[in-house]
């Protein structure tokens, strides 16, 4: 994308800014739409209506929330550790925003075509933990501290099954680049990794069940990484009041929210790229059919965002269905169930790939 804008504008600064702005806009939009969607989805699942009185069906609700939070007083307790307290939301937001650098929205719209994209994604998303720990510690609140401790152990534990599944997919595709992974699963849904990948043969059908298992494992563990129910233990409302951001208000809190919804979309994007063809269209490209090739990237953006939002929707759906796990059960789920399954899956996919 940088190259494209550089050629277009001839200015390094402008090109860099635009390249950075696209993910930023996406994060902000993801938060705005995500919060609205969350409230609407939850409301309709509960036989309610959700926001109705700001615009048509409350469509500006999150805008109102945002403007309101902008003008809230920044109430800070005198006992907090000021530096860490102020730094934490920034760090959390940076972690979730930086993840967007390597996510390919289409074959053209991608922050940086890093060869080690998926590695970078896993690494940078761990930055969130540091922010959360800082927030919890500096707030000088016992609930925050408990939430932060829980969160750290949770996110670090769930990195492992995520990484193992990613590893198996890296083994299968033979690349670390998210863009290449997407390209390999060419248009049409039967080429997606969840259905055994683009290579047609006996191995394809053998792979399908293991791909599904892999998908379930990575979906569950990414769910835990972004602290969504049933794994929202760090911010467990009925136990820890609001967890690590108990003491935050106004815009600082909004940044936590932004990063949460940004992360939700990012991990959905990751799942999409690994298993559901990334930005590839399930039914072939319209642009191809009518011979207008410049349309294809736009179609790809549409498909990527649609798939991403679908998985975000499933996250919400799960959230409003399930109760919350306890902190030790969360750990046992990870260490006793997900990791063994993920390892077995890794070995089997490895063997099938070698065949």
């Amino acid at each position: 994308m940088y190259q494209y804008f550089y050629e277009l504008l001839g200015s390094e600064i402008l090109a860099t800014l635009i390249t950075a702005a696209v993910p930023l806009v996406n994060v902000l939009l993801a938060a705005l739409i995500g919060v609205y969607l969350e409230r609407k989805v939850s409301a309709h699942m509960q036989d309610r209506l959700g926001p109705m009185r700001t615009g048509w069906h409350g469509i500006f609700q999150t805008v109102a929330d945002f403007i309101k939070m902008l003008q809230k007083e920044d109430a800070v307790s005198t006992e907090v550790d000021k530096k860490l307290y102020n730094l934490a939301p920034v760090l959390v937001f940076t972690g979730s925003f930086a993840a967007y650098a390597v996510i390919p929205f289409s074959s053209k719209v991608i922050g940086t075509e890093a060869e080690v994209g998926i590695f970078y994604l896993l690494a940078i998303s761990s930055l969130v933990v540091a922010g959360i720990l800082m927030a919890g510690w500096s707030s000088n609140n016992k609930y925050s501290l408990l939430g932060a401790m829980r969160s750290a152990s949770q996110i670090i534990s769930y990195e492992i099954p995520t990484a193992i599944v990613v590893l198996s997919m890296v083994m299968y595709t033979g690349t670390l680049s998210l863009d290449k992974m997407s390209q390999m699963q060419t248009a049409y849904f039967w080429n997606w990794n969840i259905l055994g990948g683009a290579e047609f043969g006996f191995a394809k059908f053998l792979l399908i069940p293991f791909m599904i298992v892999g998908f379930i494992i990575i979906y569950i563990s990414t769910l835990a990484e972004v602290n969504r129910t049933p794994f929202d233990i760090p911010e467990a409302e009925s136990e820890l009041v609001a967890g690590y951001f108990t003491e935050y208000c106004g815009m600082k809190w909004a940044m936590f929210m932004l990063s949460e919804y940004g992360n939700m979309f990012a991990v959905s994007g990751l799942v999409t790229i690994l298993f559901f063809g990334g930005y590839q269209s399930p039914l072939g490209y319209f642009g191809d059919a009518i011979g207008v090739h410049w349309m294809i990237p736009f179609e790809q953006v549409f498909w990527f965002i649609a798939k991403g939002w679908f998985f975000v929707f499933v996250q919400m759906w799960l959230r409003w269905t399930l109760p919350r796990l306890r902190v030790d059960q969360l750990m046992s789920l990870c260490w006793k169930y997900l990791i063994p399954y993920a390892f077995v899956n890794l070995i089997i996919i490895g063997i099938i790939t070698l065949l």
Partner: protein
Amino acid sequence: MGLLDKEFSDGNIVIAKVDDLFNWARLSSIWQLGFGLACCAIEMMATSASHYDFDRFGVIPRNTPRQADAIIISGTVTLKMALRIKRLYEQMPDPKYIISMGSCANCGGPYWEHGYHVLKGVDRVIPVDVYVPGCPPRPEALLEGLLKLQEKIRNESLRKKSA
């Protein structure tokens, strides 16, 4: 008060428009402190439940006072609890609003006469914006109180009141 409140001494068209925008944002997203005291809390829960749905007005319960805009005092305030309520109120960031729900919060309710242990009206410890009468008020009555509060917010201004 909030970030810009009472910062301006003379009004102009810009400030008036910003006023409108800010007030609109404030009134359409009053987040309530999820905090139940007594009988009225059940009606408050019923108001957030499917039939009346507080969420339509953008009201969602937040459990920490730091993220709340409004506190609904729903029930009898005993002297022991009054200190806590005052503290909760002080922890909320400005701008903050209070709805006093039900007779007990309004003035001690059925307990005002013989209740040696009951605060006779929550307005003795914190400034109340809207009084919703009822024992307990119907959910619609609470919604009406909320509409009254919105009406009050709509008329707020960033301008300093001339003395």
